[in-house]
């Protein structure tokens, strides 16, 4: 009965085409990416040397690289990075915690879901930045107003994703839990949460993206610390190489965070 012949090979479906074509395709894709990057850099350098643009608008690559080097050893940069990182982390923690709770409540209760659905759906795509003046009045110009705004934006992404994940849970697994007389707490921790791990992590990933955007945006508007603030400072000084160097760092950090959570979500236990 327990013969290996009865076992399915989970990899089989993917293996056949992957072996023959995937490495070739992957190599070509990589090649195109490298070519695009090099072309952009070449065009940039060409424009920079052409003298078509006023002064420093398009600085040369070497000057951007030099600025980047300077930035990476500048303690002021790390102080601001820390502020933004903490603000984003706090936004995401608060937004995700409230979002998961809301998602579970809405997902578990059809009536509440129907009642609240329009609010959640129509409010979630609204740009949060328009609420920034309100947040400043409530929480002041310091980090608190950025955290509040960031949390608000992360909240919707996580709540929607959690509610959807909750409704997708296979009903039979809930009946199994009930038949073994699981307590409410056991149902939540041993059935609902594990079954919703992937949608929740996806929600957190989306939430982190919008939290970073919102926090940075808010910092550029009104603040006295953080990377957004620093970008505006550099801009005010019209230090274009420094501005581009900062943007490169922000892209790199946001991309890395996104990749990390994406990996967590894909990793099926």
């Amino acid at each position: 009965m327990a013969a290996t012949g009865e076992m399915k090979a989970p990899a089989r479906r993917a293996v056949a085409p992957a072996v023959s074509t995937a490495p070739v395709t992957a190599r070509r894709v990589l090649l195109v990416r490298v070519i695009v990057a090099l072309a952009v850099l070449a065009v940039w350098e060409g424009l920079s040397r052409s003298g078509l643009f006023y002064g420093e608008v398009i600085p040369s690559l070497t000057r951007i690289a030099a600025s980047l080097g300077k930035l990476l050893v500048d303690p002021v940069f790390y102080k601001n990075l820390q502020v933004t990182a903490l603000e984003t982390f706090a936004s995401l923690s608060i937004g995700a915690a409230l979002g998961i709770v809301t998602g579970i409540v809405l997902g578990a209760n059809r009536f509440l879901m129907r009642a609240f659905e329009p609010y959640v759906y129509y409010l979630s795509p609204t740009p949060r930045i328009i609420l920034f003046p309100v947040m400043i009045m409530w929480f002041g110009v310091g980090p608190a107003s950025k955290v509040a705004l960031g949390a608000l934006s992360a909240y919707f992404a996580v709540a929607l994703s959690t509610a959807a994940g909750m409704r997708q849970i296979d009903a039979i697994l809930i009946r199994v839990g009930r038949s073994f007389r699981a307590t409410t707490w056991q149902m939540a921790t041993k059935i609902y949460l594990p079954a919703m791990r992937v949608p929740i992590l996806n929600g957190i990933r989306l939430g982190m993206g919008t939290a970073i955007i919102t926090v940075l945006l808010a910092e550029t508007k009104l603040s006295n610390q953080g990377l957004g603030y620093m970008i505006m400072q550099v801009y005010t000084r019209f230090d274009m190489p420094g501005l581009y160097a900062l943007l490169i760092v922000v892209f790199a950090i946001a991309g890395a965070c996104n990749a990390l959570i994406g990996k967590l979500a894909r990793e099926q236990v």
Partner: protein
Amino acid sequence: MEDIRLQPAMVVDDVVKRFGRGDEIVTAVDHVSFNVAQGEFVSVIGPSGCGKSTLFNIIGGLLGDYEGSVMIGDERISAPHPAVGMVFQEESTFPWRNVIDNVAFPLELQGVAKSERMDRAHHFIDMVGLASFEKNFPSQLSGGMRQRVSIARTLVSQPKILLMDEPFAALDEQTRLLLGDKITQIQQELNQTTLLITHNLTEAVQLSDRIVVMTYRPGKVKRIVDINLKRPRTSDVVGSDAFGHYVAEIWNDLREEASRGMADSESAASRRGAHG
């Protein structure tokens, strides 16, 4: 066996379940009574729409609102009872747990210490013949193997009564016969009181000591048939004359009910067709 049957493990007494309200009341289970003795294997058989699944949910305690009584000892079932272990028809393993953690699940709920939990889970995994797959995840197993994981998971909680709802419905005939052997063997080993809900005639005769034949809607008990085939039993019994007689006899009862069910669904289909 007669003496053991004097002390029933479970008594189903005059159970009625209606759904809907006003003019649209449907009686799913209609004054059903039977009992299951200690160590006995009883099957409830009937066509689709005879209220089998409703009965399964009532006995399992998942459907608490019904008339009449299902008694275990002197307790009336109205919520899942520790003495009843359910095995579902659907795919019900937890995809995020490997085999041994799936099987250990009920023990985890009871707060059994980890090492004991693993020992006990291992014992029942071995019993269903999956000892070399303890670390595998359900997605890496066949449907028949996953159903055995579910059965082991229910057995590990050591229920007084094993309650199964068409556990082999999704499997092919050969796997079904072999799994039937496994069930017979386990049932004899544990002297496990078992109630099987099924629409499969050969499966019911192969496994049971008694078969409760249900009528098509509303679901009543049409007849209760004793199956006097020798024990210990294997799937070889399927080839015997006695087996053939039982199948023919029960089919005789069942045919009328099944064709009523078929006529009903055909007229429903033609009504839908007329509207469409």
